[in-house]
Each structure stands twice: as C-alpha cells, then as structure tokens.
C-alpha cells in the first residue's frame, strides 16, 4: 500500500471501517512508514479529543417531562377524535382470533423445517455480517495456539482449532458470534480470495449427524454434528473445495 492510498483510507482505518485485507495492509504500512504513522497518531488523538464525552450535551430533565406530556396529549386527543365503534371492535377481535389460530396451526406443523431453515439463515447472516463490518475476527492470528486459548473464559466449551495452511486453507483468526440463541465460536479461514467462516457450538443431541450441504443466497453451507459439537461452514467458495475443507475439519476433530 502506497502513502497516497494510505492517506485516502486513513479515516476508514481510524474508524475501524476497512475490510480485513486492507486493514492488514494498512497496519503493515503504518509499521514501516513513520510519516504516515504520525498522521495516523494525529487523527487518533483528534478522535479521542472529540469523543471523550466532554462535548456531549445532556438533555435537561425538564425536556423529558415536556416531551412525555406532549406525546400524552397528542395520543389522548387523537383518540377522542377517532373513537372506534363497538361493532368495529367485534370485527377486529374476530380477525385477531382467526389469524392467531391460523398462525398457530402453521407454526406447529412447520416447526422442524422452519427451525433448520432459520439456522441456515442465521449462519449466512453471520457470514455476511463478518464480511461487511470490520469485524471478521476478534483475535486475528494464524497461530492456532493463540486462537484456541483466546476462547477460554469467553465460551463454555473449547473449540478445536487447526491450521490447514499446508492444504491451502489459511487460518486468519477467531471471533465470538451469537447464533441459535447462544454464544458460538467462529473460526475464519481463507482460500485464495474466499473467506470461510466455521461456526462451532456444543449440541444437546447425543447422536452424530452426517455432513449435509446446501446453498442459500449464493453461499454454500456444510454442516454436521460430531462428538456433541455442531459445526457449520459457510463460504462463497465452490462446493467441491468447501467439501474438501469440511472433510479436513471433520477428520481434525
């Protein structure tokens, strides 16, 4: 990365808005270039001077009372202007009962596939989120002996962390994520330009479950359950290579 590019992207970097690759390039450049590092220090200092809270105007307490009162008056006034007649209430109640009943039936009947689908959607969302924000990793490291201990104390289980760099899948780091109503471990790997997210959490099910693959929104997903651990892998990588990676991962565990 040149000094010129650095100057253009420095604010994105200071604000933590760059993607992982450019973030790493930026870090490298700042280590090597004292001039750009100085500019970086200045903007960081400026940030802390404007964000330390001393410039924040707190709303006076009377304002909250005033706003509440106006809202109350507005709501009360409009209610008086549009009273809902009794027969309308009956219609509303009937529609409500009907729709609750219908939803209930559908919910009960479709609970199983809906749960699996929901999970797949959550996995894809987690993957997309990790690519969008500059929050791909909490612990960026290619060393599994750094990544694994990082999870200690943050999760109630310890995920297996392996590097498959020799097979072309480079470990980039780990992060905490929230899926399926619980905190899960996310491991990030890279294959050429493709990023892979591996999401791991302990399962309540006793039995193992064979590998299954699917495609959602253009992303490929593979998931399985082994030794009481649920594993989901998601990436835009082609299904063949993703399958190879899943095999490696499963054998490793």
């Amino acid at each position: 990365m040149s000094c010129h590019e650095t100057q253009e992207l420095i604010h994105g970097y200071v604000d933590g808005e760059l993607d992982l690759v450019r973030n790493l390039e930026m870090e490298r450049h700042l280590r090597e270039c004292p001039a750009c590092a100085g500019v970086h220090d200045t903007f960081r200092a400026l940030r802390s001077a404007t964000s330390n809270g001393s410039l924040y105007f707190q709303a006076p307490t009377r304002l909250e009372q005033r706003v509440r009162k106006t809202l109350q008056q507005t709501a009360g006034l409009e209610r008086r202007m549009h009273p809902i007649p009794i027969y309308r209430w009956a219609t509303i109640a009937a529609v409500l009962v009907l729709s609750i009943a219908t939803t209930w039936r559908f919910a009960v009947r479709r609970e199983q596939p809906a749960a699996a689908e929901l999970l797949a959607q959550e996995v894809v969302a987690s993957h997309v989120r990790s690519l969008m924000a500059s929050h791909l990793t909490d612990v960026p490291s290619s060393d599994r002996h750094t990544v694994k201990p990082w999870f200690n104390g943050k999760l109630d289980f310890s995920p297996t962390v392996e590097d498959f760099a020799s097979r072309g899948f480079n470990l980039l780091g780990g992060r905490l994520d929230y899926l399926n109503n619980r905190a899960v471990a996310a491991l990030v790997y890279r294959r050429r330009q493709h990023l892979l997210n591996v999401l791991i959490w302990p399962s309540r099910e006793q039995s193992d479950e064979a590998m299954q693959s699917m495609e959602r929104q253009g992303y490929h997903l593979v998931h399985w359950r082994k030794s009481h651990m649920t594993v989901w892998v998601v990436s835009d990588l082609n299904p063949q290579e993703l399958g190879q990676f899943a095999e490696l991962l499963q054998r490793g565990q």
Partner: protein
Amino acid sequence: MPDQAELARFEQAVLPHLNAAYNLARWLTGNEHDAEDIVQESYLRALKFFAGFRGENSRPWLLAIVRNTCYTWRQRNRVSELSTELDEEIHGIDSGSASPETILLASAQGEAVQRALEQLPVEYREAVVLREMEGMSYREIADVAGIPVGTVMSRLARARGRLQQLLRSERPREATA
C-alpha cells in the same frame, strides 16, 4: 391514531434516545432553546411515523427525523452558513503534518475543541457528532444523513482536516491570552 398501548411501545423504544436527539439538535442549531423545541417536534413526528417503523434500531431512525427537523428549522431561520465550501471529493484532503505539536494540539482541551467544532460547516459537524459522540458506523451515519457511505468517509476526512487546522490556529491565541 396512536392509542395508549402504541404510545407506551413508542416511549419504550424511542424515549431512551432523548439525550442523543438533544445533543444532535444542540450541535446543529447552536442553542439550547431551539434544540429543545426541535426535539419536541421531532418526537411528535416520530410518533406519527412510528407505525411504519419496522427496524430494530430506533436510534438512527429517530436521529434522521431530528436531523431533518433541524435542517427545516435552519432554512426557516435562514441559517445559511458555509454549505458552499462543501466538496465531496476525497482528493486533496489536508492530511496534516505529523509533528508532536499537532498531536498535542489534537488532544487539546474541551473548550478549544468545542469552539473548533462549532465553526465547521453543518454537514461536517453532524458527521463528527454522529461518529464520535454517538459512535455510529458509516452505514448508520449514511442512513441518518441520507448520503452514500463513501461520502460519510470524505466528510469525516474533511471535518478532521479542518478541525486540526482550527486547533492549530487556536494555540497561539491561547498562549497570548
């Protein structure tokens, strides 16, 4: 149309952002009196639109309303300071020098920073307020201000360049005072 239940839901979702609303209005109007009026008006407008609000994060949504109310107020009151110098191009940003002096200046005390921030064009000022005081992401700022994400970065870049200049020129004045 809002009934009491709707109002309760609204209050629960939106009233916690009263400080954020006031802070933004205060920075965009420059005085407490108008800021309070604007916050009150914004909450009324928000209540009206609340039925159509589907998001989960009501803060950017509310702040967008506050911002628009502020801009309407500014137009009505003919506050037309320096929107002219706005140049959204990212090129030619003053990236500043890196001397220890500027670093010292940048960490200048509250009052000097406040004066400098008040002198910024309103579009730059709002970017700084949303980013530094509300800790919003570029995406959220873009939503509030109704501009592309790239523009958020260039506005912040220009705002910081300008702040740095202002703080640098502030220094001698303080020294002689």
